[in-house]
């Protein structure tokens, strides 16, 4: 059905055209909102079409490929394709952008720019997940920064200037280090290939014959670029600041999509290209240590937070650590679970940030000590919060569990009883969520803030959250819907050559 349709290009073009249309024609807030919603909706439909047309039995690693030469002299191609690792991310991106736009229905200030930026962000994120050429990969990677910077800087909280620029520069430095790694890949691989090429697959095909030291350096440079984005401790401090200041939709996309770019990069670039190296015990242990430190550190940091949103932000660090831990095992189970965790974290974190946004909106503050006993005032919000927290702490039946459990199983399989350490986080995670709930929605109604005007969620808040929760439950109950897509693509990575 879709053989002759350049659906991947359409996935980029539609939101781009949408962004331009919104920026040019969105003369009233209402018009901008509808325009953005329609274009992101079309993108979502396209991504769903992609999902259903993806062949599970295909022998090709990548499907829907589009490959055109772009800069001949440097061996740069416009090379797009999806496989089981990128496909869930593409769908997630289209979904979250669409829902975020809907969730931002009450943005009245500079709506046109806001909506335009969201769509540009979508272009960038989708591009990252579909690119198979390092050059365009990097281009999209950087494109993402700009709209996110503006989203934080314009619609952010009181210290948005600091947070936005910190986000921008911190992650930009990381990207630049990654860029150095890409250069090194390019120049080492080109002579081996006989012609210059930025193609990911082409470079990966010869990366095995790099010298060990060089491979290690390049691997580290690329890894650094990715783990700052994920972000892993100790390169994470941009994240809490960015999240706390970002508008809700910005946080949703930041945590839901931008962090995924980092872990996606680790899988797509680092361990795919340097497959032999990744199977070395030292590398696996190093990745695992970074992951575990982030898991535990993030969890402990969460417990100390008084800002609900900052807590959720730190929880992202903790949960992305699980992704890296899964990758570190280099087994089918671990890798598949890592991808699954990326997807599930995307859904869950969206719920959590939207919840935080609603608290900000309705109660006027997210400071836990100021809140309390709000469940009777806003039962829907409280319920959603609870479901989100439960999903995030890995409650079975919801999407977070299976990924977490699989990662830990794989960890035990490879690292034996060291799994004890990351598993501890399960208790701490439960502790901060449960404690936060106790202090915000349960107990006596707070007297520290004016609670007279607190009301429950609006339709445009409930609908996206309902969709997300529906998906959280769906993929929690039927994880194989996604696992079957992911598995064929991670199997070659886990294979020891």
């Amino acid at each position, binding site marked *: 059905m879709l053989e002759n349709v350049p659906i991947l290009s359409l996935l980029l073009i539609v939101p781009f055209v949408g962004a331009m249309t919104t920026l040019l024609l969105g003369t009233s807030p209402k018009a901008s909102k509808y325009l953005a919603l329609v274009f992101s909706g079309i993108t979502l439909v396209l991504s769903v079409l992609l999902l259903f047309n993806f062949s599970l039995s295909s022998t090709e690693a990548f499907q829907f490929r589009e490959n055109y030469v772009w800069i001949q*002299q440097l061996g740069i191609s416009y090379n797009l394709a999806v496989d089981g690792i990128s496909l869930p991310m593409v769908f997630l991106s289209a979904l979250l952008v669409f829902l975020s736009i809907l969730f931002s229905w009450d943005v009245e200030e500079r709506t046109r720019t806001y909506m335009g930026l969201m769509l540009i962000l979508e272009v960038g994120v989708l591009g990252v997940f579909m690119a198979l050429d390092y050059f365009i990969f990097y281009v999209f990677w950087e494109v993402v920064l700009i709209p996110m910077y503006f989203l934080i800087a314009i619609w952010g909280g009181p210290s948005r200037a600091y947070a936005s620029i910190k986000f921008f*520069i911190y992650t930009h430095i990381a990207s630049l280090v990654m860029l150095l790694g890409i250069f090194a890949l390019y120049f080492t691989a080109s002579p081996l290939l006989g012609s210059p090429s930025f193609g990911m697959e082409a470079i990966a095909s010869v990366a095995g014959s790099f010298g060990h030291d060089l491979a290690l350096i390049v691997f580290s440079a690329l890894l650094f670029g990715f783990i700052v984005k994920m972000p892993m401790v100790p390169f994470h401090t941009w994240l809490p600041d960015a999240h706390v200041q970002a508008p809700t939709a910005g946080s949703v996309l930041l945590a839901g999509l931008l962090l995924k770019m980092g872990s996606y990069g680790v899988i797509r670039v680092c361990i795919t290209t340097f497959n032999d190296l990744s199977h070395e015990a030292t590398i696996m242990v190093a990745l695992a240590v970074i992951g575990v430190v982030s898991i535990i550190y993030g969890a402990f940091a969460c417990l100390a937070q008084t800002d609900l949103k900052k807590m959720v932000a730190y929880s992202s660090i903790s949960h992305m650590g699980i992704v890296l831990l899964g990758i570190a095992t280099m087994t089918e189970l671990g890798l598949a679970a890592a991808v699954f965790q990326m997807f599930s974290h995307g859904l869950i974190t969206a719920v959590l940030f939207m919840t935080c946004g609603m608290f900000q909106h309705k109660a006027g503050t997210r400071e836990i000590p100021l809140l309390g006993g709000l469940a009777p005032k806003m039962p829907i919000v409280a319920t959603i919060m609870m479901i989100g927290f439960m999903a995030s702490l890995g409650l079975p039946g919801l999407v977070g569990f299976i990924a977490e459990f699989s990662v830990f199983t794989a960890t035990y399989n490879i690292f034996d009883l060291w799994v004890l350490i990351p598993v501890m986080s399960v208790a701490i995670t439960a502790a901060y969520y449960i404690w936060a709930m106790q202090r915000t929605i349960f107990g006596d109604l707070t007297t520290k803030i004016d609670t007279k005007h607190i009301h429950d969620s609006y339709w445009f808040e409930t609908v996206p959250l309902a969709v997300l929760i529906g998906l959280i439950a769906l993929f929690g109950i039927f994880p194989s819907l996604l696992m079957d897509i992911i598995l064929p693509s991670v199997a070659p990575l886990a294979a020891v050559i």
Partner: protein
Amino acid sequence: MAIDYSALYPVMVMVVFAAALPAIHAVAKSSRVLAGVSLVGIFVTMALELMYIVSGEYPAAIGGASVELLRLDVFAALFALVFLAVAFYVVLASARYVEKDRHQAEYFSLILLATAGMMVVAMAVDLITLFAGLEVASISSFALTAFRKKDKRGAEAGAKYYVIGGLSSAIALYGISLLYGITGTTNIAGINTVLAGMGSELDIALLLAIGLLIAGFGFKVALVPFHMWAPDVYEGAPDPIAGLLAAGSKKMGMVLLFKVFLVGLIAIKADWQLLAGVLAVLTMTVGNVIAVQQTNIKRMLAYSSVGQAGYMIIALAVATPYAVEGSIFHIITHAFMKGGAFMIVAALAYVALGENIANYKGLAKRAPFLAISMTLLLFALAGIPPLSGFVSKFVLFSAAIDASQIADQNWMFWLAIAAILNSALSLYYYVRVIKYMYVDEGSTKDRIKVPWSMTAAVAICVIATIVIGVWPDPVIDVCEQAARALFAG
């Protein structure tokens, strides 16, 4: 033997138009007419140069077989095009900028002459023509800087520019004389041949000459520590002229360095490569670090220019065709990015918006087009894809990595590291401007009306920045040819 002067036609066109302008001024006392005429001249010249590039056929070099003086090859033509493009939008933006000034004809005439001097430099294959071209351009720009005679700051800037410029000319000339003394020739390629024949023996005079040449030409490029004039002069000069200096005159400095070092002194590159590397790192770092604290937009852009020059000097340190290709590419993109930024400053100065960055608060609502243009140009300067600055930095920095893979050149890796860290640092002050424009609220929300000519000048830069960023293939091709032509001698 009749000399074939056809290689000089483009320069001649410029000179003729420059000479004609005062006469035209006598007839039509309108800056717009003068600018229009100048644009015609520039356009004709551009067409000529473009014709050479597209056809791939170039006129014969001027001078005898053994003593070539000027040669119009792809390198020269490409740079001529860059200078002409800069002149084009500078003139366009000046059309209204100088409408209340006296001596308008001289103003445009000097721009054309400065451009002509730069073109001569691009064509020069002998130190004499090189020096002559340099001085033509320099003297014109001294005068242009001090063009507003009633302006205290303009006068001061002119004086400073002149003193440092003269000093640097003298230093360069002294270096040239030493070089002549060592090799007995002023032909650039000839110098290299002689030096190559001299073997690896080191000569105090030669090293002295290298130092003097770096210092003398480094002034034009605003190489640290010869950069200190630049911010003052950019601040004091009329805004379009600041653009001309940053986007044109500075690029001429790069041409000087390329010609002298990569052609004339390439045989002994081991002697100066590391020095060039040190200067590159120093230049980019000092430029960017000081730029962080600037409050005047022109000074900030000036320091940013210093930083950008540091990136370009990487090509000198790496000294491979690929690096030069990257550097040329970056010169081209920078001409549009930085020039465009100065044109925006000019346009805003024209409507009496101050030069303090804080004055740009809330600009996004007052002048949406200028704000978005500024944003794009600044992002391009910072190297954010998919804008042109990214692609050119991409090629330039990657050249350092490429070269660092050779065993005893591993240190070049650090050039790339330094460049990248600086790139990130520069983002900080660029973004600050963007933040002022988009995030902060201004004291007033009145729309700003800017003459269409200035808008057009900005638009040219922005469009070039985007187009080159998205479709860099043809430009990279030409840059590669130019780099090869340079190395071919």
